[in-house]
């Protein structure tokens, strides 16, 4: 079975789209954070696939992928901490009710 680039890109597109839709549609901050993770993973998959099929032995894509994984871990930690604080302060993690910035 021959491997081709297209399924990878398709999967990554699906992941990114699902993530974006999730971010836009769901109101729960934790779910939104999970969706951001989905987008990040989609991007990582995209980079790895492109590195494999069209970089001719280069490793830049893989290196960036590792960076993304590390940064995503850090980002998730900070975001979860923020969500904790928001919950403690407002007793609420529904994005629709947190409208202090309303102009």
């Amino acid at each position, binding site marked *: 079975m021959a491997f081709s680039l297209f399924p990878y890109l398709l999967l990554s597109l699906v992941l990114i789209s699902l993530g*974006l839709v999730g*971010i*836009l*549609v769901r*109101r729960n901050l934790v779910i*939104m954070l999970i969706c951001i993770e989905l987008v990040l993973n989609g991007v990582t998959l995209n980079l790895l696939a492109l590195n494999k099929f069209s970089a001719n032995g280069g490793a830049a894509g893989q290196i960036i992928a590792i960076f993304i994984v590390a940064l995503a871990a850090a980002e998730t930690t900070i975001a979860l901490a923020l969500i904790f604080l928001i919950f403690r302060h407002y007793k609420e993690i529904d*994005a*629709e009710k*947190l*409208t*202090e*910035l*309303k*102009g």
Partner: protein
Amino acid sequence: MSENIKLATWVVLCPFLSLLTIGIFTRTYKKLSALVAIAAISISTVLATMLYFKNLYGLTAETHYFEWLITDYFTLKFGILVDSLSLGMMMVVCIVSLLVHIYSWGYMEGETGLSRYYAWLSLFSWAMLVFVVSPTLLQAFFGWELVGAASFLLIGFWYYKPEAAQAARKAFVMTRFGDFGFFVGLLILLVVVGNLDFNVLNKLGTNMGVSPGLITLTALLIFMGIMGKSAQFPLHAWLPDAMEGPTPVSALIHAATMVAAGIYLIARAYGFFSASPFAMEFIATVGILTSFIAATIALVQNDVKKVMAYSTISQLGLMVAALGAGGYKAGVFHLFSHAFFKALLFLCAGSLIHHFHTNDMWEMAEKGGVRKMKITITTLIIGSLALAGCPPFAGFFSKDAILVAFETNGKHMFMYATLIISFLTTYYSFRMIFVLLSPEPEHAHGHKEEHHGHGHGHDSPANMTIPLIILAIFSVLFGFVDTPLMNGYFDKFLLNKHEIEHLHWSVMIKSFIVFIAGISFAYVQFAGKRGYREGFAEKISWIRALLVNKYYVDDFYFILVRGLIYPFAVILNWIDRKVINDTGVNGSGNIVIYSGRFISYLMNGLLQRYLGTSLVILFILVFLWQLI
């Protein structure tokens, strides 16, 4: 600063300080305000008298300038100018104003707005003094406008009466219409000459390299202001209406502070006006025409104040004509003497109105008791004799000077016109006197006392009669200053001319004959006949209609305003409301409001909306980038 300038400065400042004091401190104390104003104008009068006695035989111009605005092209200056003309005028203004202040104490007793009244009187005197001492046309314009504003405030003193409010507005708008010309003339002079000092303007005709056409143009424009202020035809219509104000104010307006300003300006800028023969001719013609028209209208007036108002217009016309015909001294002399006897006449009228509570001379005669007001009626007769030009009263000599000026300058038409006007003047003033003096009806006695709580036998209080007596003395004696009896004092004072002018007997006899004719005519028609209301002017119906309707000048203005100016104003109003306001001012505001409202939808604090917006913009940017 010389001694003279210092004195003059304080003469001008005193009424201003009184205005400030009343406005800031004594507003709520009526009597105190009145005292402050009277004290201030008294001080001014004393200082002016001191100044006068220091310079008993006149003085050459002394000027002190304060620079106000200095540019590369011109310097605008204020200042104080003291010379014979301004000194004389200052004396007249101070004396008349002081007497009016004192008289008002009695006349306005019990009025609620007394503080306001005296504050405006002070403003009026101050404005006129600022005008009188001004060495530059610009300061003259400032004083001129202040005088207009003060007269607006005083004519409309009883602002709750619609007629008074309307009269005030009419006076203001009409004089402002003339002032528009004045201001344009002033600006042209400022641009072309670059200097508005009277001593420069007066030499404009000789060597300044300004074209004669330009001088004529600016002279006529400035004369337009004078036509408004000094009530010359056709801008005279405001003056009779201005009778709605309190009577002492009318005295002030007619004698010293308002209408005198125009005459004074011609005298002040006499060299400037003389530089244009055409303008002078025009001025003289307008003057004599005004004089004749006003004198004829006065023939049919029944309101004593209206008679006097038209006589003022007529006399002002004579002054303007005299100045226009080259009679500088005659015009100024008549201005001064007219100030005294016209103030006297108005204050007498005020005394009568105060007593009878009506302005109509027939009603006064009907109520009876005029003869018992001895001081008022005596001084009224003296004033009328002076106005009519009976020798040896003030008006006789000053009118004589005008006649002589016409004769020596070869304007015989003007002289004969003046004689006719004198005849009319004598006739209408003695029509008034004879009507007032007509014998009392028998039945009036008992029935009047019921009406009038205080009876009808006594005269007005002393603070009203004393000014009358003082002014009467001036009206009797002032004329002699121009006769050989006083060694031609007036010539010496005003013109620094030392030879004594002999009396012009031929002119004097002519004017005396005219006086006798006028008074006997009035006697035949009105004396002793009760209820006989028609003089010769009323007999012919079309003349009567013409005169009663004041030559249809008011109707003409009415049609002009209704038919032409009002529709134009409606169009302008529409443009202002719809185009400038709704589209321009409110339009730009609305754009900001609506765009702000639209943008504020984005600022709703909803996280997902922000994200969505960012994504949409991102997609748009990517799309655009693709296009490039």
